C-alpha cells in the first residue's frame, strides 16, 4: 500500500511539473505521432489491398487453370479442355440445364493514371456469355453492357475513377484494335472493379489466339467444390488446377501485401529507432530538470522503485498521446483514400486504404514500446542517483 502511495505521489508530481517541460515533452509526442502515422498509413495499404482481395470471389465459385499455373495470366486452356470442364460434377445449371460457367481470357492494356499520368498495366478480361449469371454481383451503373462480336468494353468503377480515357464513349487503342467504352460497372468494391471486360470470343479473335486462359464456374454450393475438383482430377483428358475463387484472389494479393508490410515495418522501424532516441533525450532532460526533486524525495526516504515507475509512467503517457495522435492522423488523412498498385497477376489494382481499428491499436502498441524503451534508461538513472552527491549538485 505504501509502495503504491509512493508511486502515485511521485508520478502525480511528475505530471504536475509537465507544463514546465512542455517543449521537450512535445518532441516525444510529435516524434512518436510521426512514427505511428507513417507505420499505420503504410500498413493501411496492405490492409486495404488484402481487404479488397478478400472481398473478391465467392466460396461457391471456382477457377480452373492449366496445371501448374500460378495466375490466370500465365494459364492456357484450349477449347476442348474448356468444353470438358463444363461436364464436371458440382457445377450449377440454369433452367435449361446448361452449366453456369465463363471461359475467360485476358490481356494487359497500357493506360495512364489520372493523378500523375504514369503508365500502368490494366487487365482487359474477356468473359463468356453466361458471365452475368456467374457473377450476379456485377451491375452496370452507367451506359450499357458490351455487345458480342464488336470491340466494346465495360470498365470497372475503380478503373474509371483512377485511369484516363475510360469515360463512356472514349476509345482505347491497343494493338491495332479500337475498344469503345460503352459502360461502367461495379462489383461491390472487389478486384474486378480495377479491370475492363469484353466478350471473350471478340478478344480471342482480335488477338488471334486459339485458347482461353481460365474457366470460372458457379458451383451448386460451396460444399460442391470437392466433387467438382475430384471430377476434373479424375478426367485423364484434363491437366488442370482448381481453386476456390476467394482463395485464388487471396493468393494473388499475398506477395504484394507482404512487400508492403515489410516496407511498413522497415520504414516504421527506422523511424521508431529515431523516436526512441528522442524519447531518451527528453526523458533524460526530464530527469535532469527534476534532479533536485528526485534527490530530495530519495533523501526523505522514497524508494527507487517509485522513481523508476514514475519516469516510465511519464514516458508511457507521452508515448500514448503521440501514438493516439499518430493513429488519428493516419485515420483522418488516409482512411478510405483510393490508391493503386501492382496486384500481382491482377494487373494494376485500385483499392482503398483501410486504417482499421486493429491497425490503430497496433500503432499505439508500437508507441508504448517506444515510450518504455525511451524511458527505461532515464528511469534507471533516477533510481541509481547517488543522493548525497545529487543534493550537493543542486
Amino acid at each position, binding site marked *: *500500500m*505504501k509502495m503504491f*502511495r*509512493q508511486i502515485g*505521489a511521485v508520478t502525480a*508530481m511528475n505530471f*504536475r*511539473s509537465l507544463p514546465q517541460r512542455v517543449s521537450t515533452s512535445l518532441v516525444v509526442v510529435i516524434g512518436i505521432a510521426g512514427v505511428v502515422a507513417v507505420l499505420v498509413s503504410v500498413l493501411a495499404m496492405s490492409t486495404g489491398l488484402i481487404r479488397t482481395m478478400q472481398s473478391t470471389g465467392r466460396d461457391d465459385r471456382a477457377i480452373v487453370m492449366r496445371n501448374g499455373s500460378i495466375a490466370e495470366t500465365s494459364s492456357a486452356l484450349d477449347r476442348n479442355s474448356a468444353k470438358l470442364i463444363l461436364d464436371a460434377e458440382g457445377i450449377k445449371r440454369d433452367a435449361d440445364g446448361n452449366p453456369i460457367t465463363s471461359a475467360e481470357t485476358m490481356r494487359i492494356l497500357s493506360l495512364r493514371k489520372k493523378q500523375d499520368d504514369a503508365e500502368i498495366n490494366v487487365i482487359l478480361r474477356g468473359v463468356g456469355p453466361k458471365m452475368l449469371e456467374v457473377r450476379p454481383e456485377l451491375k452496370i451503373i452507367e451506359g450499357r453492357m458490351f455487345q458480342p462480336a464488336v470491340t466494346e468494353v465495360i470498365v470497372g468503377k475503380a478503373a474509371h475513377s483512377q485511369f484516363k480515357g475510360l469515360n463512356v464513349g472514349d476509345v482505347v487503342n491497343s494493338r491495332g484494335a479500337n475498344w469503345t467504352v460503352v459502360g461502367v460497372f461495379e462489383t461491390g468494391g472487389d478486384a474486378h472493379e480495377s479491370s475492363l471486360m469484353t466478350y471473350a470470343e471478340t478478344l480471342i479473335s482480335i488477338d488471334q489466339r486459339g485458347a482461353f486462359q481460365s474457366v470460372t464456374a458457379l458451383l451448386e454450393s460451396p460444399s460442391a467444390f470437392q466433387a467438382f475438383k475430384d471430377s476434373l482430377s479424375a478426367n485423364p483428358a484434363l491437366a488442370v488446377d482448381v481453386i476456390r475463387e476467394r482463395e485464388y484472389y487471396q493468393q494473388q494479393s499475398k506477395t504484394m501485401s507482404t512487400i508492403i508490410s515489410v516496407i511498413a515495418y522497415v520504414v516504421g522501424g527506422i523511424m521508431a529507432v529515431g523516436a526512441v532516441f528522442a524519447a531518451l533525450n527528453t526523458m533524460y532532460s526530464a530527469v535532469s530538470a527534476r534532479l*533536485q*526533486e528526485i*534527490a*530530495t*524525495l*530519495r*533523501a*526523505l*526516504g*522514497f*524508494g*527507487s522503485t517509485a522513481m523508476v515507475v514514475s519516469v516510465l509512467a511519464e514516458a508511457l503517457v507521452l508515448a500514448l498521446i503521440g501514438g493516439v495522435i499518430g493513429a488519428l492522423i493516419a485515420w483522418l488523412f488516409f482512411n478510405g483514400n483510393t490508391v493503386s498498385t501492382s496486384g500481382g497477376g491482377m494487373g494494376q489494382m485500385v483499392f482503398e486504404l483501410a486504417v482499421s481499428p486493429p491497425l490503430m491499436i497496433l500503432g499505439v502498441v508500437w508507441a508504448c514500446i517506444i515510450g518504455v524503451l525511451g524511458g527505461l534508461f532515464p528511469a534507471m538513472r533516477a533510481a541509481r542517483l547517488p*543522493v*548525497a552527491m545529487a*543534493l*550537493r549538485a*543542486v
Partner: protein
Amino acid sequence: MTALVTLRNVTKSYVRGKQKVEVLHGVDLAIERGEFLALMGPSGSGKTTLLNLVAGLDQPTSGEVLVAGDRIDQLSRGSLSDWRARHIGFIFQFYNLLPVLTAEANVEVPLLLTDLSRSERRRRVQIALELVGLADRARHKPNELSGGQQQRVAIARAIVSDPTLLVCDEPTGDLDRQNAEEIMNLLQALNRSQNKTIVMVTHDPKAAEYASRELHLDKGRLANDSRRAA
C-alpha cells in the same frame, strides 16, 4: 544520557579521476539524545560528509555508524531509504521544497511513507504548520513564499513525522540576518521544548551560538568540541 549517534573510527574517501581523496580520517563521535550540535569548519573540512553519514545519505569507507540503535553502515540502499523515512528529518540550505506542491502538500510528503490515514496526515500537517507559524500559508506554493517562509515550511516537513533526528545543512545559508535569526530561534525552540536532537552544519558563528554544542572539523578530523551551558 544515552548516545543517539555513535561514530567509531569512521573514514570516508572518494575517488576523483585517478586520485583517492580521504575526507574523514578515523572520526570518533557521540551525540547525545536531545543535543543541538553545530558542526563547523572551513570548506572541505568534511562537515557535510559527516552529516550525510549520520543522516544515512552516504556510507562510510570504514568504521561504524550507529544511529538510534541501528548500524546504518551495514544497511542496504533500500533499507537505508526506509530507515531515513523513519528516523531523519532534513532541512536543506535551499529548502528543497517541491515547486508544484502547496506548502501543506510539501509538509505531507514524508507522511506518504507511513501508514497514517488521510485525515491523520492532514491533522499532523496542520499541527506542524502551526508550530512554524505558517498555518495561514498552507495553500501557497513555494514560489509564493519568501525565503524565510519556505525554510519554515521545510522545517515543518522535517518535523511532521516526528523523526528521531533533525539534520540541517546550512539552514540559514540562503537567508538574510532577520530571517536567519527567526529560523534559529525556531530550531532552538524545537530542541528545547520538544527535546529534538539536531545536528546542524553551518559556516555562520552566529547560527552556531544557538546550538548547545559546537564541534569543529579541520581536514577531516575533529579539532575542537565545546558544550554551551543551557
